[in-house]
């Protein structure tokens, strides 16, 4: 195999611009020439773009141009949790409308489940032009194997140009199976999607390294172009109950049902009345709350604001609160409208899980705590004084 990236020695002047932009520290300058460490290089092309002397060449495999003219429409996977359509699906319909407008194509909602026909109109009211419906008792519970089999079949039949799903536990478990089955490109956890109209391509933007870098990804030679999209990033379209659309019911064979996975039961977590990834407001407690019983205070503030309770790793590891509340690298990644960090110092592992929140409020005794670097509003003070006051004031303003 020929090497896929090369420094053209005659052109390289050893200026070091490429060294600075390389996100993988794969380039060094030796004897005034750039040298690329191929074991570190990810072939992302940042160096090639930065080089003012066209001294770096990347040999991307040339593919014969495929004809994709039969692929059309933007599909949205409709996710439901125990009979209720998830918010992320409506957000995706909103985004799909924008993409479909740029492509002059239609928005199609793919809706699987049991006894779901009555809900199809909601999807049309919220932006779908068509709903492909598969109503079957075996599809009542989300089992990724069954859903992937059915949807892969539908994709082969209808050939969508783009396929979107929420970057939820269900979405992420499902879509990778479909992408492998179809052999197409999938980009996880996108925070931005737009159409390159000239090339008729979906440009997908996603964070990597816990949001420290952003990558733009395309899938030019494969269809559909598949993405999972973060919750709370896209805007729901406004509801129009007069909107008209087509509902197509698909009958599928029993052979699509994989007998190897059996759903037994679902157990709702008592304290997580508000789902972390669904919440507009999250109030999180860290080591600074000093004791498990003080989570009551965090809960009370969260409740007052109609938000969810988050936690730092330290509090979870101390057994003060269950793991499902942990925000950060080894917990959940969240991006609410408002994130209130109480007694959290702001280690990088915590920051990567919440730094995409729109507004960050930090309450901490230590003025040098790193959390203040990402906070829009910081209060240096004792949380046991500040939080009760906050609860009081918010309750007053509600009245």
């Amino acid at each position, binding site marked *: 195999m020929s090497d896929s990236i090369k420094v053209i020695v005659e052109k390289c002047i050893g200026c070091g611009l490429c060294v600075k932009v390389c996100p993988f520290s794969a380039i060094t300058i030796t004897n005034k020439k750039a040298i690329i460490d191929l074991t570190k290089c990810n072939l992302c092309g940042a160096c090639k773009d930065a080089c003012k002397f066209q001294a770096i060449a990347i040999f991307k495999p040339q593919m014969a141009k495929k004809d994709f003219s039969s692929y059309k429409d933007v599909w949205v996977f409709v996710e439901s949790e125990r009979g209720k359509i998830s918010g992320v699906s409506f957000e995706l319909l909103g985004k799909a409308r924008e993409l479909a407008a740029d492509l002059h194509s239609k928005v199609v909602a793919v809706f699987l489940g049991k006894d779901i026909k009555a809900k199809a109109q909601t999807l049309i009211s919220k932006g779908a032009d068509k709903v492909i419906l598969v109503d079957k008792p075996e599809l009542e519970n989300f089992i990724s194997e069954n859903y992937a089999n059915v949807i892969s079949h539908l994709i082969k039949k209808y050939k969508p140009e783009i396929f979107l799903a929420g970057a939820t536990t269900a979405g992420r478990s499902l879509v990778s199976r479909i992408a492998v089955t179809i052999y197409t490109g999938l980009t996880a956890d996108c925070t931005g999607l737009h159409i390159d109209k000239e090339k008729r391509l979906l440009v997908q933007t996603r964070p990597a390294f816990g949001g420290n870098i952003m990558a733009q990804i395309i899938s030019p030679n494969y269809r559909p172009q598949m993405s999972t999209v973060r919750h709370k990033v896209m805007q729901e379209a406004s509801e129009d109950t007069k909107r008209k659309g087509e509902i197509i019911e698909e009958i599928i064979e029993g052979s699509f049902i994989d007998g190897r996975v059996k759903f037994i039961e679902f157990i709702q977590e008592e304290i997580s009345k508000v789902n972390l*990834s669904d919440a507009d407001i999250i109030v999180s407690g860290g080591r600074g709350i000093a004791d498990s019983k003080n989570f009551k205070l965090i809960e009370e503030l969260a409740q007052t604001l109609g938000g969810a309770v988050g936690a730092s790793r330290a509090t979870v590891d101390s057994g003060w609160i269950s793991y499902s509340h942990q925000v950060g690298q080894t917990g959940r990644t969240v991006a609410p409208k408002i994130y209130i960090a109480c007694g959290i110092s702001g280690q990088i592992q915590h920051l990567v899980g919440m730094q995409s929140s729109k507004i960050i409020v930090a309450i901490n005794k230590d003025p040098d705590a790193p959390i203040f670097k990402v906070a829009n509003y910081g209060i240096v003070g004792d949380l046991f004084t500040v939080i009760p006051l906050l609860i009081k004031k918010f309750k007053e303003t509600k009245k």
Partner: protein
Amino acid sequence: MKIIVCIKQVPDTTEVRINPETNTLVREGVASIINPFDMYAIEEAVQLKEKFGAETIVITMGPPQADSALREALSMGIDQAILLSDRAFAGSDTWATSYVLSRAIEKIGNFDLVICGKQASDGDTAQVGPGIATHINLPQATYVRKVDNVDLEKKVIRLERLLEEGYEIIEVSMPLLMTVVKEINTPRLPSLRGKMRARSQAITTWTHKDLDLKEESLGLKGSPTQVVKIFTPPPREKGMILEGEPEAVVDKLVGELKKHLI
């Protein structure tokens, strides 16, 4: 039982800093570690081995340096390690990565369980686990927080999966692939004996020639997705530190937040 654990070596995020001048990642001197979620996968394999008796094998795809990640897994009690390393694998996206791993797993053969971490801390995709399962046509259980029961006679495993609003219990027939979350266990520290053994143990390396692979499905060529641009996100707006008497400060904050709540 035969258990295969898939791991990835990643840069240690705790050491990743942003150069304030260039606004890029500083990765010089950043240590490589086993992806934090993969530590739980390794530990779960070792615990299952202790409970039911099992042969455990760890595999990783990466550059020759990934050898150190494999040795760490061995030191925790995994029996054997295989490194999948080849220039032809470079530039693989999640499709091509799961393809190579799946072929290696099939070559090992005769397994009952494949365990992966729920996602890697550098890419955060959570796609490779389900991708491997699909390439081999295995049933999968993602986000596993607990193994309730392993019935070796009926070849069925009962698991708890952590979801957004609670957890679900499922039964999956073996062989299967599962991805695990932190809640499942506490990874052990390697014992001195484990470390000694890991240092001297031979590690098998497989290149694309050792595996039944289609060349057009490898590396950049086999990857449907292409990275076209990498950039650092704009830094967050400079924040406001509210100072003064607690009452006044809280008033101010409530006033500011109300603007964002509408």
